């Protein structure tokens, strides 16, 4: 027999493309443009008909088939999307309404737009509690990601990133500015950020800094959908650092009573703006093609991408070709689900010499770029003349020479992928067995070349270097999941138990350094041809989620990790968590409150660990063999040294306890929804590189477990569909994060004066500007208190004598002043759709973050202009304000409030719709501007620098892009 009918939506409009099938058979079809369908050839008898359409609640109807054609219409209702949306969690997924932890998912429709090259930038400003700071404006450069402020001082503060079940290496790959940039952002479907311990503890020892789960796009059933998008963009420098012009410098020197004739004599006749010379307007293009569909019920998606990006710094370039393949078939009547993902990328970079950025600030603008000389025609400060000229070793090098006379190329190939088998037992469908085998391999290779005559490597007669690194990480995971509705108890139980094996192995090959002509620079022959750093982690984990009456959810997890980085005595760590969730909305007294669509309360507690940042063998009493340029002579023979290495035989995991309480809410059928979380994180056995009693080990510093840090904070999210009509939609999203970190303990012995000096700055030798001190935020600035005259001008070298001992000394007069960590992060996104037009923007703000203006402290002094080393250099215009003669590196004058409001992105889109009546091709166009503006009182170039020390940042460009999307 046959059935036919029409499928309509809640507005009685036909739903084209809805899937209709007869359960338990291979019979099925899709509705046509008018929402009609017909299935014939059905055996007589009772059958179940299912209709499915994305975004609508699935419907089933039982009918009896006979030889008479049957008419069967369906009226679908939209699902309450946000609550039933499936959210991935560690080793599984749950409906959003059943989430027990602080988890935020961002899907592709909410990503940042424009010329996004590295995946993490997709969610910048979108998630409360997550701070994403791009490291620089260089092509493919990475970002610093901090979830809830990070937990550690010296160990890593980077979150664990898991792509389709494969934990990926975010450590450096030789030749790649940023390992994440090797993943094509266009392949990503969702980001899920796990924040509290209830969500993260299942990842045990790698979870203290939060976990980011990335899922990539998969194929769907139906006929192939081809999607092509192309983007052309241009990046320009927003602004320059204000340095003296050639004329200002000339005036400064000639009118200066301290400038001897010698200095006036150094001045040249040219007017060079070095920043104009080294920066360019860069053009980029990004093209992506994907095809997804199903072949014989095997869904697939293939995608290729080609990115060509240039930097605003001359000669900077990145080409990335990426491909991905996903196949997700099901076998044995859907009992076996197979998920295969393979991603690969080939990227080629040409790195510009970033030394030019700082050099452009201080190089004398009265000198020309080019000159007839032996240094390849680039003007240089040199001693001697003609063929005997030697570059002045203390002077900066010609910025253009630095760029044009250095070749630095790399090629990095990376692939990661996995195969995941999920088998639902035939005899016990509540039980699943899941096997996940994955890999992450990369090969980075590259070389640099500086010609013999270039001033930058004059002392070694040019240079040639090369490197090669191979990364080979393997993972294997197996778990069993038992999920059963216990109707008699009105409850559900969901239990998972598994094992994981993770092996990380890198091979670094060593090469000698060569002169430009290929001769080995003596002493640089490597002692060993290669090194294979390796570590291994093995884990057992379990989780139980018990839900009673759909109202009360109790969840607990435990993981035990063993790491090769620790001695057998402390090798295994245990990381438990527990949480309780109350779905208040399901209580009878709230069920009838129509305006409230969701209310859920969560509390959780758990312990996570952290081991990244510990070297592979720091618990072993090993000896290193010195390099060939570090030998010692006895008689006429040179000996490589055997060197005992400092070790801590008891080094172990850092442990973070997290307490979290949160509310998820929704109003007006979830048109307004969001969450509020408060958390308290306490890290103990903190890994810190601390001064230890001198003489007690083979170094005076040791990375060891010492001290505690506490983080507390509040996160608030709200998203609202302010207007939701057929033609006009307006969505607003806002998030707020407050975070505060305190060091509560640091040392073997409690001493209030104990400091760990950190934050090396440029200028002088070996100075630091920050400190870790008990009772203060990590990385607090550690500075002298500047004294000002009545006009507000800082008095050079005059500081407050804070300990009243009559002398100004680092021992008692430095004080802790502010820190680079913001007190508050705000994110705001909005999207307007009107008919075929769409408009979107993302704004971010940081408050209470401070910056050390190292550009000003290093270059903004007379000593830099009238340089004692025999040349004139340039200064920042700040010198007119401070009028400092000598560098005052440690003055709090240079610590500035760097709070800012930045518009990350503004975009306009137009959907042309179908190109013609007959064609299924759909075209969208969009125009985008990134890094639109920054509002800040900070006097330097950019107020957003992760470590709070501003020195020759690669400027973040302003990028305009034009894109088109074609789907058919």
């Amino acid at each position, binding site marked *: 027999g046959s059935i036919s009918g029409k499928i309509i939506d809640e507005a009685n409009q036909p739903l084209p493309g809805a899937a209709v099938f007869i359960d338990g058979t291979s019979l099925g079809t899709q509705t046509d443009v008018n929402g009609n369908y017909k299935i014939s050839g059905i055996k007589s008898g009772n059958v179940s008909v299912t209709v499915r359409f994305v975004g609508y609640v699935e419907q089933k109807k039982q009918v009896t088939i006979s030889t008479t054609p049957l008419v069967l219409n369906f009226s679908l209702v939209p699902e309450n999307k946000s609550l039933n949306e499936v959210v991935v969690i560690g080793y599984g997924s749950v409906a959003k309404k059943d989430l027990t932890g602080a988890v935020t998912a961002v899907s592709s429709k909410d990503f940042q737009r424009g010329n996004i090259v590295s995946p993490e930038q997709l969610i910048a400003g979108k998630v409360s509690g997550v701070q994403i700071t791009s490291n620089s404006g260089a092509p493919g450069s990475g970002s610093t990601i901090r979830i809830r402020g990070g937990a550690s001082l010296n160990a890593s503060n980077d979150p664990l990133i898991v792509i389709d079940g494969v934990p990926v290496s975010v450590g450096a790959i030789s030749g790649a500015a940023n390992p994440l940039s090797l993943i094509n952002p266009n392949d990503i479907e969702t980001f899920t950020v796990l924040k509290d311990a209830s969500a993260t503890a299942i990842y045990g020892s790698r979870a203290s800094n939060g976990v980011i789960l990335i899922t990539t796009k998969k194929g769907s059933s139906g006929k192939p959908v081809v999607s092509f998008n192309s983007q052309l963009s241009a990046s320009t420098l927003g602004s320059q650092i204000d340095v003296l012009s050639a004329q200002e410098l000339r005036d400064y020197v000639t009118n200066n009573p301290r400038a001897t004739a010698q200095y006036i004599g150094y001045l040249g006749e040219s007017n060079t703006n070095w920043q104009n010379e080294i920066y360019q307007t860069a053009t980029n293009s990004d093209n992506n093609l994907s095809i997804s569909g199903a072949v014989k019920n095997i869904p697939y998606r293939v995608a290729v991408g080609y990115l060509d990006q240039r930097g605003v710094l001359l000669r900077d370039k990145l080409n990335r070709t990426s491909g991905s393949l996903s196949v997700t078939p099901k076998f044995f009547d859907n009992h076996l689900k197979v998920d295969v993902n393979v991603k690969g990328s080939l990227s080629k970079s040409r790195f510009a010499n970033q030394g030019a950025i700082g050099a452009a600030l201080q190089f004398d603008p009265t000198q020309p770029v080019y000159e007839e000389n032996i240094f390849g025609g680039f003007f240089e400060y040199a*001693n*001697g003349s003609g063929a005997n000229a*030697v*570059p*002045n*070793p*203390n002077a900066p090098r010609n910025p253009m020479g630095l760029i044009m006379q250095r070749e630095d190329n790399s090629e990095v190939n990376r692939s990661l992928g996995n195969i995941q088998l999920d088998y639902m037992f035939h005899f016990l469908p509540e039980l699943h067995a899941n096997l996940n085998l994955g890999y992450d391999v990369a090969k980075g290779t590259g070389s640099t070349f500086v010609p013999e005559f270039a001033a930058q490597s004059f002392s*070694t007669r040019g240079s040639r270097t090369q490197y090669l690194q191979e990364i080979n990480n393997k993972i294997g995971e197996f778990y069993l999941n038992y999920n059963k509705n216990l109707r008699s108890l009105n409850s559900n139980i969901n239990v998972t138990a598994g094992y994981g094996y993770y092996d990380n192995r890198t091979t670094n090959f060593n090469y000698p350094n060569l002169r430009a002509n290929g001769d080995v620079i*003596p002493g*640089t022959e490597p002692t*060993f041809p290669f*090194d*294979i750093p390796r570590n291994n982690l*093995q884990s057992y984990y379990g989780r139980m989620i018990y839900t009673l009456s759909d109202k009360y959810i109790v969840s607990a997890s435990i993981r035990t990790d*063993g790491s*090769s980085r620790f001695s057998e005595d402390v090798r295994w760590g245990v990381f438990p968590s527990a949480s309780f969730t109350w779905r208040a909305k399901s209580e009878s007294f709230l069920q009838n409150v129509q305006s409230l669509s969701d209310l859920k309360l969560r509390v959780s507690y758990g312990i996570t660990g952290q081991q990244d940042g510990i070297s*592979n063998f720091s618990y*072993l009493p*090993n*000896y290193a*063999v010195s*390099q060939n*340029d*570090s*030998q*010692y*002579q*006895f*008689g006429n023979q*040179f000996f*490589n040294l055997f*060197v*005992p290495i400092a070790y*801590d035989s008891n080094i172990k995991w850092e442990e973070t306890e997290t307490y979290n309480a949160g509310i998820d809410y929704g109003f007006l059928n979830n048109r307004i929804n969001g969450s509020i979380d408060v958390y308290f994180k306490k890290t103990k056995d903190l890994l810190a*590189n*601390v*001064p230890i*009693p*001198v*003489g*007690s080990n*083979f170094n*005076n*510093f040791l990375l*060891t477990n010492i001290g505690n840090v506490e983080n507390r904070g509040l996160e608030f999210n709200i998203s609202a569909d302010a207007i939701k009509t057929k033609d006009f939609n307006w969505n607003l999203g806002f998030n707020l994060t407050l975070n505060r970190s305190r060091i509560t303990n640091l040392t*073997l*012995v409690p001493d209030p*004066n*104990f400091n760990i000096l950190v934050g090396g700055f440029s200028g*002088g*030798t*070996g*100075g630091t500007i920050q400190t870790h001190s008990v009772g203060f935020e990590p990385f607090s600035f550690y500075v002298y208190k500047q004294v000002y005259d009545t006009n507000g001008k800082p008095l050079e070298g005059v500081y407050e004598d804070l300990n009243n001992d009559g002398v100004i*000394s*680092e*021992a008692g007069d430095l004080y802790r002043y502010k820190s680079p960590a913001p007190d508050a992060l705000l994110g705001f996104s909005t999207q307007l759709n009107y008919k075929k037009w769409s408009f979107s923007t993302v704004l971010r703000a940081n408050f209470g973050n401070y910056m050390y203006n190292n550009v000003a402290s290093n270059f903004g002094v007379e000593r830099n202009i009238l340089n*004692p*080393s*025999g040349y004139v250099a340039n200064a920042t215009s700040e010198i007119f304000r401070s009028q400092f003669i*000598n560098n005052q590196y440690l003055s709090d004058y240079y610590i500035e409030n760097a709070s800012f409001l930045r518009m990350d992105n503004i975009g306009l889109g137009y959907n042309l719709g179908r190109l013609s009546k007959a064609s299924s091709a759909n075209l969208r166009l969009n125009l985008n501007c990134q890094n639109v503006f920054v509002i800040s009182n900070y006097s330097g170039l950019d107020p957003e620098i992760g470590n709070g020390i501003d020195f020759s940042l690669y400027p973040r460009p302003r990028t305009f892009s034009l894109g088109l999307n074609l789907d058919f």
Partner: protein
Amino acid sequence: CTKDLDLRPTNDLTSESAFTGLNGYKQVLAKVYGSYALTGNSGPGSSDLGGIDAGTSDFLRLYWNAQELTSDEAICAWNDPGLPELNFQTWTPGNVLLRGLYTRSLFQITVANEFLRESTDDKLSGRGLSQADLAEIKRFRAEARFLRAFQYWVLMDLFGNPPFITENDAVGKFLPNQIKRAALFTYIETELKAIEADMAAPRTNEYGRADQAAVWALLARMYLNAEVYLGAGNAKYTDAITYSSRVINAGYTLMPTFRNLFRADNNVNNPEVILSINYDGIKSLNNGGTTFLINSSINAAMSPATFGVPNGGWGGNRAKQTLPLLFDDRSGNTDRRAMFFDGKLNVDDVSAFTDGLASTKFSNLTSAGVAAPSSNGTFASTDFPLFRLAEMFLIYAEAVKRGGSGGTEAQAITYLNRLRTRAYNGSTAGNITSYNLDYILAEKGREFYWEAHRRTDLIRFQKYTSDAYLWPFKGGVKAGKGLESFRTIFPIPSADVIANPNLIQNTGY
């Protein structure tokens, strides 16, 4: 699979694999010595120490700064952290350079202790070594103890009361005990006498390794300064004469040409040097040592190529006028030891390298005037004379003058005139017939300037803190002023006072 958690490094050695055969022991011994020559194990950018810039963390650079910048000899133009306080004698316990020196000295001691722990009879017995090997290792042990004693002497001289660790302490995070200056004197004296017999006879060991004469030379130096370390009334001038005489009689002779002591080939045909710190412009690189001494003492305008460092010339250290004024004729034409680059004598502006005469004593040219190999035209191959015969002559003369027995003034004058004759290029025109203590101090300055002796000498002559003897910028004022009396020893670095509650800060800080 849990077997995979037991990983071992690819290239690093364990203590078992490091100490296999004589060569393994020798390579660890090379680290014991290398600890005062190099900053680390992986080239000039690496450091054994934390909390200090790698290039600044070598022994000689730090020791030199502490002994010379704080005296009437040298002043530095740089602004590097900690340097201005040494220039002006206003250092505090937080001074990063003093912390570096303290840590470097204790580091070498720690490595020496490790060698001693791994070369006990117990450990040796299981390692399949021949009798000859065992005899050689016994000598290595004595040398490791010598280097440890030398660094304890440095710590005693500069910091007075350092932490005290020996091979009997474990490696970990424990709190070493502090030793008082007088007790440390006894320890060093006992150690040196205990190892004397196990050391090679003078001038029989390999170049660069200590022998009996080094032991005697250190004892002589220590005895000469005994009153400083042990307090007034504890003079040991007779012992100073005894041990300086042993060195003098051990077969050393003066290097015929003074300047060749400080040239790149001073490792060959050098009859005068008893123990040197060895550097090589290709195989033993660091930005301290003689590379620092040579490059920091000249600037790019002085044509660095004529000092064997064509790409060098850092323009930092030059003489306070008190130093060239020790010479009647500072041109170098009469007294050849006056090696200054002609320029402005007086230091008016500390940050102007050209204020004050540049010292050209150290050079990376060989005695033949050829630049020694250097991997980048900056690194030097010149070795630094830690002990040389001339010092023994001066110790002898001073100890005799101060009332020690076992020597005569006549003999002393003979020794002093050997230095004068060499200085005057073989002429006796500069010879003396009598001398007083002031002469000794001035002559020590003429003979040993830029060799990191000066602070110790000024303290012994009680001229260091006194306002009766001033030098430019002493105490931070241009005309000079007296220093607080406690400044004859440096503070224990505050970082270690905090890390190690067993330490009590030196008086005054």
